């Protein structure tokens, strides 16, 4: 087990296993799994004791040996440029997993933008992708993180939307434009939204306008 940070607050030190730049300025950071968690949960991450941690969705299956987070490197950010520079063996402080944006076996639509795909990849890798529809919106086709795995197992239930660039089976436009084109949304289905604030609020409005009860929508916003 990792040693507990003196700062407490549930943070403990772990060692980086891998730090992959999966797209320019987007990293997948992994470390050896020492905690159980529920797919969809988040962790707080900091690099130094006493600094304010930031929250990231876990981006790995709950049966896998490593835990991971997917993050954009924000040039003006105080944490992500340093996270991007981490090398295997370097230390980081991680909280116990927590949060209630949880996937389960029930039918659902997973709607994401950008790195908001992370909790859905965690759910997918935890075996919850069977009766789900995944809608992922990005700017460029290269940003369909884990796209091959989703396409292989979800087939037509994996919808890719890109605002720039073209590709086979890619909807040209925003997630919200794709939602607007749907004639109806399935009933008895839960709708999970994760990503940038504007996508989340606009998609939520479209779902509600399309007859989805607000109680059936659960959102996680990256801020």
């Amino acid at each position: 087990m990792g040693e507990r940070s003196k700062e407490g607050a549930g943070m403990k030190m772990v060692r980086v296993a891998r730090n992959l730049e999966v797209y320019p300025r987007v990293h997948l950071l992994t470390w050896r799994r020492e905690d159980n968690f529920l797919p969809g949960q988040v962790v707080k991450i900091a690099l130094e004791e006493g600094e304010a941690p930031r929250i990231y969705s876990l981006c790995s299956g709950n049966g896998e040996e490593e835990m991971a987070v997917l993050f954009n490197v924000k040039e003006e950010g105080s944490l992500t440029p340093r996270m991007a520079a981490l090398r295997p063996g370097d230390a980081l402080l991680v909280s116990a997993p927590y949060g209630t944006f949880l996937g389960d076996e029930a039918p659902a639509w997973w709607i994401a933008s950008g790195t908001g795909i992370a909790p859905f990849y965690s759910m997918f890798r935890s075996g919850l992708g069977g009766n789900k529809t995944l809608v992922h919106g990005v700017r460029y086709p290269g940003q369909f993180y884990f796209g091959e795995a989703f396409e292989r197992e979800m087939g037509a239930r994996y919808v890719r939307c890109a605002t720039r660039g073209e590709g086979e089976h890619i909807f040209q436009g925003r997630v919200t434009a794709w939602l607007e084109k749907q004639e109806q949304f399935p009933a008895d289905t839960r709708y999970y939204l994760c990503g940038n604030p504007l996508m989340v609020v606009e998609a939520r409005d479209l779902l509600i306008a399309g007859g989805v009860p607000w109680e059936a929508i659960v959102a996680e916003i990256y801020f």
Partner: protein
Amino acid sequence: MKELLFGKTLSELREIVTAAGWPAYTASQMADWLYAKGVNSIEQMTNLPVKVRAALAERFETGVFPPSRVQTSVDGTRKYLFATASGKFIETAMIPEGDRVTVCVSSQVGCKMGCLFCMTGKQGFQGQLTAGEIVNQIRSIEEAGQVSNIVYMGMGEPFDNLEEVLRSLEILTAPWGYAMSPRRITVSTIGIIPAMRTFLQRSEAHLAVSLHTPFDEERRRLMPVQVAYPIREVVEEIRKWDFSHQRRVSFEYILFKGVNDTPRHVRELSRLLNGISCRINLIRYHPVPGTPLPGSDEETIALFKESLNNKGILTTIRASRGQDIYAACGLLSTRELMKNP
């Protein structure tokens, strides 16, 4: 573009003065002109030497901006529209009530938090305001000299722009600034815990927390922030601070018919807030277009208030103001101006 003086703290003004080699007291003189006397130009800072004013004018401008539009409600509430330095727009509400003049300021252009019931959230997030842009909302309205209370409850989540909000609070409360009592200022948050902790350490202003339901499942459907910062953890943090004297914590609670206005909610609120010296402000819901939540009726609101008071929680009902000009709680938005300024 020249740097703006308005919004700088005394220590920042001292840095400018020191770097220029001017006497240290020049910084205090500048603060006095900017905040106490309220000048509109550097030229008006007449106790500064002409050479100093000329040198300042080369690099700086005052940075105070009048509102670009004012709307007045039938109840006297006013809604001001301000343009920001980045070409975006924010709204500010001025609410007169007897001897009190309360100004409800914005801290961001738009908001990232995406609460289901909030008009501001529907426009997404377009940028942070500077301390100067926050204080300018108080300084540049017609009622500037009469403001008795300030609430950070306009557009945006103040604790998502913490440093600028803290700087604005310093300017408003410091003797060299507006010298307002921090007890006349309330900062409202949906509960970003680390920033809330920093605010409680570094400011004396009152705290308000948007609660809206004590139940986890229900709150995360109304307020996505619940996933990251559950209300129980927010309340546990508040429990560590002393609110039994002059500093107050209040909880904002918008009532939605059949959603969060039941006896079950009263009981859970009582359990959640047990032992905290606080007040609950009940707020009538002002319908937001496209949002499927109905507001509670007056009878239910009154009963809810009475039930909470009977549980020993001081509970009040906030008067709805400025609804006809979309200045009421949760209705501020500059979404239309994002496309058609």
